[in-house]
């Protein structure tokens, strides 16, 4: 029996207050949740954000109607934690026109030895997107969620998901190409 098969049992046990089962759920989902929050909010205070997600899971698991809905629900909770954090902090929003006015036009070739700098570039590029566009791009392109799942997680129509994805990809492409990345 794989871990995926045991998850419904762990969910039921967690509802009864079984902490070990809850820990098993945490271990099964922490990688994805952690990755999502890292791409959305950065690496600072990541443990706190992850803990907030699983505290909400612990608090709300009793009201979950069916174990099959757990997967969508935990990622939705993750998105909501990211959203709440954003609302409580001051984030600068970059408009594309303003951004490109200050963009450096130097061309740097990314060598195989410079793969670390490519990661930094991707992180900077994500930081240049506004929160909603970054969310769609992270969920679909980085974390491989479907458009339907992304629509459910972010609670927006699929049309909005597609629109934001289109604009996010364009903006990212322009930024990376301006940094010398040939895509």
């Amino acid at each position, binding site marked *: 029996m794989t871990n995926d098969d045991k998850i419904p049992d762990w969910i039921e046990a967690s509802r009864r207050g079984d902490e070990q089962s809850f820990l098993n759920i945490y271990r099964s989902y922490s990688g994805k949740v952690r990755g999502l929050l890292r*791409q959305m909010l950065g690496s600072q205070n990541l*443990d706190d954000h992850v*803990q907030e997600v699983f*505290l909400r899971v*612990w608090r709300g698991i009793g009201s979950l109607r069916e174990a099959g809905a757990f997967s969508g629900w935990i990622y939705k909770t993750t998105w909501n934690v990211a959203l709440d954090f954003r609302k409580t902090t001051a984030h600068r929003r970059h408009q594309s026109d303003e951004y490109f006015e200050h963009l450096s036009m130097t061309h740097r070739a990314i060598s195989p030895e410079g793969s670390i700098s*490519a990661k930094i570039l*991707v992180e900077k590029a994500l930081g240049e997107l506004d929160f909603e566009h970054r969310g769609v791009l992270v969920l679909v392109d980085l974390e491989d969620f479907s458009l339907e799942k992304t629509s459910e997680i972010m609670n927006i129509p699929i049309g909005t998901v597609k629109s934001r994805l289109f604009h996010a990809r364009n903006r990212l492409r322009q930024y990376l190409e301006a940094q010398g990345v040939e895509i």
Partner: protein
Amino acid sequence: MNKENRDEKLIAFLRSNKPDVPHESDNFEQQLLDSTIRKSRHRRFEGLLRSKRNYAFALAAAAVLVFFSISQWRSNILKPNPTIATSTHSPAAELSDNDVYLFISESLEVVSANHSSDIFSEIEGI
């Protein structure tokens, strides 16, 4: 290059250069459990107080219970022995001993009219 190909190349680049995710701290799981235990206890307490109306009702009921308990306790402290009180306050206790004797005698006369006179003789002897 069409749009789909460009998107695929972009996605491939992003995924192969995804920013690193730092590992959790060493005692993260223990901290998580401590927080969930604290949260669940707090949640139970919150649940009891969640409804103001229920809270007010419970408080009123508790106050009434305490009041009656104190009243009962005070009554028990101040009231003399109930058996003695009953005997001193009952109507029969207000009769004199002579009245009691007469009452008993008259009753026995009635009884003796229907029964053997030996019973009356035995009572006279008390």
